[in-house]
């Protein structure tokens, strides 16, 4: 079947199997490999993308469901001139990246959080991250990055 959707601002039409996930469409059909697959069951959050502005686990999202929707991946958060988004820059400046495999999912999730709630408390940040696993950092620098991105915190 053909699937038409908007990805990072461009309309794309791809031929897919009906049982494909959005993650497979992004990684294998569109070669957007910034979105990662960690668990394939919606547990780790590494595959998080925005669908019409809302964060979803693309590994368990059937692709046909997003027909006509607007999808934003980690690649779509960088500015047209290649500049980092505020959350991306805050991750760099606050040492919120170690192995980096979970990072795209965290950046996308937190971008959605700040769109909805521009000045979250630390507790609200942590709660918003309940669906994102990081095995490296212990989360402290990630939370610090968000606080810094909202003009609070050190870096």
């Amino acid at each position, binding site marked *: 079947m053909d699937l038409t959707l908007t990805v990072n601002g461009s309309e794309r039409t791809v031929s897919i199997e009906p049982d494909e996930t959005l993650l497979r469409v992004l990684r294998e059909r569109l070669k957007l*490999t910034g979105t990662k697959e960690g668990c394939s069951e919606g*547990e780790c959050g590494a595959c998080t993308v925005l669908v019409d502005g809302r964060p979803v686990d693309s590994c368990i999202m059937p692709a046909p469901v997003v027909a006509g929707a607007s999808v934003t991946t980690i690649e779509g958060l960088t500015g047209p001139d290649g500049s980092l988004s505020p959350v991306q820059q805050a991750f760099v400046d606050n040492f919120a990246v170690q192995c980096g495999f979970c990072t795209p999912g965290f950046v996308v999730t937190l971008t959605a959080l700040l769109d909805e709630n521009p000045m979250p408390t630390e507790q609200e*940040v942590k709660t918003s991250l309940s669906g994102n696993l990081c095995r490296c950092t212990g989360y402290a620098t990630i939370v610090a990055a968000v606080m810094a991105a909202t003009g609070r915190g050190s870096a």
Partner: protein
Amino acid sequence: MTVVGRSVPRADAATKVRGEATYGVDFEVAGTLYGALALSTVPAGHIRSIDTSAAEAMPGVRGVFTAADAPDIRSGLAVNDQPLFASDVVRFEGEAIAAVVAETMAQARTAAAAVRVEIEEMEAIATVEEALAEGAPLIHDDWHTYSVRDGLPDFPRAGNVCGEMTVDQAGVDEAFENADVVVEDVFHIDRQYQAYLEPKNATGLYADGRYTVHVAHQQPWNVRDRTAAALGVRPSDVRIVGHHIGGGFGAKLDTALEPYAALLARLAGAPVKMVHDRTDDILTCASREGAVIRMRSGVTNDGRIVAREFLCDMDAGAYAGDTPFLTSIPIFVVGSLYRVGPTRIVSRAVYTNTAPTGAFRGVSGTYLYFALERHTDNLANAIGMDRREFRVQNLMSDGHVMLNGQALDDAGILTTAFDKAEQHVPWRELGKGPNRGVGMAAAVWLTNPMAGEVALQLHTDGRLGVVTGATENGSGAVAMGVRQVAAEELGITADEVVLTMPDTDMQGFDAGSQGSRTTHIVGRAVHNAAVGMRERIRTVAGQVLGQDPDDLEVAGGGVRIKGEDDVRMTLSDVARAALGAGGPIASTGSYATPAPKFDPEAATGLLFPIWPTPTYHVHVAEVEVDPVTGEVKVLRYIVVQEVGKAINPAGVMGQIVGGVAQGLGYALYEGLQIGPDARYRQRTLEAYRLPIALDMPEIEVVLLEHPAPEGPYGAKGVAEPPVVPVAAAIGNAIADATGGSIDRVPITPEDVLDALEQGSEERT
């Protein structure tokens, strides 16, 4: 110093936040096919038949292969006991039986599930106790025919025991008789899954009689050697190319899918990519081993430890892996931290019908220190002495001789660490109030001594290329540590350093990101290489400038006359001039820590005999337990850690906080449990409970810096130790809060409720 000691953002941060970094799972070449393994669904049995016909007939399938298609070889890290595919006996659930190559990953996985294997099931041995019971069936009934790995002396092994380390000092039994009180504890420890977020993967290619494997791996040179051994070819017939690593934590030090991907590429005549799904990854991963520990000490009423016995059985799983090496670790733990009298240790690696276990950050130390420090609390309590006072009274000091006969010249740093913890927050102020408790635990940990090499090249644009097989597993050891040392050595900014990915066909041999070694060892190799490079730069610049090279220095981004501030030639000018004056500027350097003296007679079966470049650590935890649910809340967590010198303070903090997080997971949430049927109970990341952001307390860190004379700018190992004492400190705090005994890892809510009940009974 202008670069070392500063929190410079890591080299790979921007590419990672953009989603551009290519990890192993992202790497692909044109014409790639996909491979998947058919794994045994039973833990023990005899294979009666393997029927691949249904799988072969499935859409897109290019081939189905079994042991009949692979060389008839057994290999291993310590014992040559493991074939690529089971052909007659199956020894664990998850053991590979066949492999499928197909046009898509989904086709390969579907076909792998269609391989029909008829297995006559045998009773599976699920625990070390069952494996050691009299008359237990042998997991490997031909164990005596197995050789040990080339270059390794043979070591004690027999039946289901695949490695045994023994220390038996004179006078242990007599010393127990002279004790006022003897305390005995038994500890049961579950496995821990490394749970790196990038599942294991490999892409194999075969051309011109050589194998190339693209990996996200912590130790490319080991992958090369182990892949070659499994395939029966020479190591230089295999080339390993590294990519960004989505976490490893020790699990990506030994081979997993690499030999299969290489073999399948040759058999299928095309590149073959393999990626585990999460369940297969859990079923086959060499997790941190479980163990059973029996520990007994005699103390005097005035608080001296006069005798000790320590018996430890480690669960190696169905194949020995690295566990025979790990039986050595107790010798560095059981007689350290505190002075003890005559000591006996028997530490065994035991085969069971479960997935082979292996390296995880702080190998074995997490539970060995749990046992030692829980036991230390019990000793203090048994004679009615404050637990901190008992520790301080018995602390080892400078020159302390460990049970392997090695002297720790700087062991007095441990006293400083205890003092710093007390200055940060007094021990007696913590753990006050109902259901609250405080615990402390210390550790001495090593910096792995194994060799590393770098090649430095000065590019004609003036940037410094660092060619190394050292892997950036996420810790920052390369992206911060090695990079900043290299910049400092050449007087340039960190941005002017160009890092490469590992490639075993190129220079830069490296013993892997393990044992906190990379910044220390590879940083020192960079230092050694930079000496030669600076000399060459001064020689070339001296010719151009008409100056004596001895009057020149490499600093400020170029070459200066000593005592002057102006740069007379940029490094780019020098690099270009060199092309006509002897050739490009390049230099190599290598380093391995000289082995400290030890006593070879101190133990038998000691495969890992030394504990180089030690670091010292004290952790303090304050907890509150919920008397209704048994849940544990960590109120405060304090780390005092000796790091030698923090090359990048933010990077060091990242390692400490991340390490403590893994330790809290180990202590409270993460058990990878084996049922009586020898199968894992947890098979998904939903069932295997990892810490989330909401679980993490603030980690309060006090850094100690006692620079290592031999280290690059004094840096010692940093990344492993923070995970090591966490379960011990948390366990002691929970025992204090409940008044009961805590003797298992992980410590579940049921354990806490049991301890509360036990505590209330003891108080009445």
